[in-house]
């Protein structure tokens, strides 16, 4: 089954290009034919000349980034974007969610839906959609929300998994918190699940784990692409009966997003190292899984500097609903994906420990395990963990707090009102997110 990716705005188009790059490289290297052919089929289609074209629709309100991504793709020699799969305008959204959602999205709806329709027609079987976007700007966030709504309307029975990039806390865009709040509140109703990467966390991976001295957005996006590919590349699932799953998005969503109040997913992978070091390292599943489990419960995204002191509170202790008391990150559900050598002998009991989960789901239902015997992205053994946990609670709360403070002074509101978003709309979005925050905070009760 095939996945159609919709790349929205600068971030969506930059990360998307990196994602296809990682996937195609991994598919090409893969020593198992079935793995490779499933991977190619899932994300690419072959032209009559044998070239691989990504199953992607590129959308932006200005042309520079799309042009750049298409050029970079073509340079890879392995794959490219189809000539006619992109839509751009001449002038951006001005970092204004209201402009993106109320004006530009509707204005260009037909053109974008047509591109999506064509891409869907090329799929023998559609596994679902992955809109990729940032939440801070105007196009990814505003137009992206509108496009997600269109996907929902036109393909009501397809899975929609949004990949979201959250901006640095100390700002890339001054109104980023407003744009984020509006986006998240709306997507919560529209999307099946939201898989989030935070620039701050990925930046730390680059500097402390990968030891990069100068970090560019290219580096950041490469890490995101690696983690995302680790989730999306073929795997054997409990439901797939010995073959690579044909329904990756559906199975991911049902494994993790079983309750409409809990849709925030984050990813974590191990090992993460500079590619030059990989050849010289040896990995063992016990070590990898032990670290990964601690990364989950201590809410850190890297092996470097793990806090081994963080423990799940003892069952007898009365649990408070303060935000992640004691630094412990409670999970609602986890999806553990193991790839590479000796996967079948990997011991995953640590992830079945009831103490790390909230009390109202039995661990047997809370943990899902996928495996692939094929080494991924040059790592002999690697694991990716997708969790529905409190990991995003603090960043979300910070985002809402800052947006609320700004809203209290009504700063910048006139810029949104100008394009049809009222104070009421803002209040509705704030209310929705306070609900989400409250739900996640309760996971420890």
């Amino acid at each position, binding site marked *: 089954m095939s996945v159609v990716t919709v790349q929205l705005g600068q971030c969506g188009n930059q990360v998307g290009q990196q994602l296809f790059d990682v996937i195609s490289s991994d598919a090409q290297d893969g020593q198992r034919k079935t793995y490779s052919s499933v991977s190619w089929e899932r994300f690419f289609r072959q032209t009559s000349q044998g070239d691989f074209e990504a199953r992607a629709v590129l959308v932006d309100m200005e042309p520079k980034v799309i*042009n750049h991504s298409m050029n970079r793709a073509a340079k890879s020699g392995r794959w490219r974007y189809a000539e006619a799969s992109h839509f751009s305008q001449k002038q951006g959204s001005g970092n204004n969610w209201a402009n993106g959602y109320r004006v530009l999205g509707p204005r260009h709806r037909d053109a974008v839906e047509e591109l999506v329709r064509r891409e869907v027609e090329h799929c023998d079987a559609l596994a679902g959609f992955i809109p990729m976007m940032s939440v801070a700007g105007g196009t990814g966030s505003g137009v992206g929300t509108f496009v997600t709504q269109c996907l929902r309307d036109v393909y009501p029975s397809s899975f929609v998994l949004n990949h979201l990039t959250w901006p640095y806390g100390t700002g890339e865009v001054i109104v980023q918190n407003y744009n984020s709040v509006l986006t998240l509140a709306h997507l919560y109703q529209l999307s099946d699940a939201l898989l989030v990467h935070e620039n701050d966390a990925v930046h730390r991976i680059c500097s402390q784990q990968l030891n990069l001295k100068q970090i560019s957005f290219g580096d950041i996006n490469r890490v995101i692409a690696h983690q995302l590919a680790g989730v999306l590349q073929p795997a054997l699932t409990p439901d797939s009966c010995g073959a690579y799953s044909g329904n990756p998005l559906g199975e991911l969503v049902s494994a993790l997003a079983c309750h409409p109040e809990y849709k925030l997913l984050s990813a974590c992978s191990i090992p993460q190292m500079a590619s030059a070091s990989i050849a010289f390292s040896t990995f063992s599943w016990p070590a990898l899984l032990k670290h990964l489990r601690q990364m989950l419960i201590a809410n850190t995204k890297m092996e470097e500097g793990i806090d081994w002191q963080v423990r799940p509170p003892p069952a007898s202790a009365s649990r408070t609903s303060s935000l992640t008391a004691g630094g412990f990150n409670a999970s609602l559900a986890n999806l553990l994906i193991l790839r590479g050598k000796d996967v079948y002998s990997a011991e995953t009991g640590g992830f079945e420990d009831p103490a790390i989960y909230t009390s109202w789901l039995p661990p047997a239902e809370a943990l899902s395990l996928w495996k692939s015997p094929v080494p991924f992205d040059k790592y002999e053994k690697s694991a990716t963990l997708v969790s529905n946990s409190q990991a995003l609670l603090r960043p979300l709360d910070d985002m809402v707090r800052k947006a609320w403070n700004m809203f209290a002074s009504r700063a910048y509101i006139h810029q949104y009102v100008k394009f049809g978003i009222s104070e009421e709309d803002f209040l509705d979005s704030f209310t929705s997110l306070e609900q989400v925050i409250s739900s996640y905070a309760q996971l420890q009760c």
Partner: protein
Amino acid sequence: MTQSVVVQVGQCGNQVGCRFWDLALREHAHVNKRGLYDEALSSFFRNAVLIDMEEGVVNGILQGPLREVFDSTQLLTDVSGSGNNWAVGHLTYGSAYREAIVNKLRKAAEHCDCLQCFFLIHSMGGGTGSGLGTRVLSLLEEEFPDVCRIVTAMYPSAEDDVITSPYNSVLAMRELTEHADCVLPVENQSLVDIVNKISVMSHGAKPGSVLRKDSTVTSGQGSLSPTEKPFDAMNNIVANLLLNITSSARFEGSLNMDLNEIAMNLVPFPRLHYLVPSLTPLYTLADVNIPTRRLDQMFSDAFSKDHQLIRADPKRSLYLACALMVRGNVQVSDLRRNIERLRPSLPFVSWNQEGWKTGLCSVPPVGHSHSLLALANNTCVKPTFMELRDRFTKLYRKKAHLHHYLDVDGMEQSIFSESLSSLSELIDEYHQLDATKARLIPDAPRLSIAR
């Protein structure tokens, strides 16, 4: 590709404008030579409209190296000038040439595939730039309400030669407050100081480092006398401001910053749209050979009072918002490191504690490896405006020169008093925000969810 239309009004506006076109063409010619993908050359600079009520400057342009760039349909001139009288510029010429101006603007706009922004360049102290310039501003709002209007306004210093410059400036300011989306105020004295600093830097540099042959530091008319203002060099700085502000729209980068994003992020309340510019490193503003300094120094300088284009110290006032546009070989980690480093020393308003708008453009200015443009919405403009108001009131109280204005058809005393009120209200708004500076503002109480 978006286009902008540059409207240059008056002597100062036209001199700065031409400097800008010159630099821009050089920049694109340089980039093209390297074979980089460049759609921008033909489309961005599609249009300028040159307006002056005297012929001297515009004629000079038509005889100079830029004569290929402009054609006569883009020009509007008269012969007698405005006599340093805002009312003559705004009302007399404003009415007489209204239709002609609108036609030329429409023509320029029609040439554009996608018109994003009008750049208006004029001085505040004279008659044409300040009077007719602000009339053009309101015409732009009438005819093209959805297109962003960014005004680069040259404010006179206290020692200005034109006696009535306070009148002209305050009358013009009201128009800017009401009709512009963003104003980039620039003070002559700051420009002079910066030019002098560059001069000192280049003379203090190692022997053998020479002012480049086509250096813009020396005036076009031969050697500088000590009392003469280095206008060429000063205009160069302002031209660089425009060049940098538009760089992200013209070239690619990993984090683009479009013109409409500038207005969106830096203007929290409609009237508070005065953005103090600073350009660093200084040596990028003149063709001097100075070895590249440390990158971090460039960021520090952007916030120092010596590098602002108005006489103000932003660190001692309150930041409402700040944008950093970086050009050249600078990565997001350099940007973040410097923001983290400098942030503790910069007072930001309580509801925008981490409010930064950042942009990374990969193409540096010609001949340099990197540069930084900072635009600050900061209450440090308040002293500048208060001084302006004081100079105005000194004259107004004595009714000095008032009759020159009131004699003009359509001009009334109420326009003076209304402009003064507008300025006072503006100062007051900044004052209210300043008052929050010392106070510790608690977080606004959050919505509570019933469970």
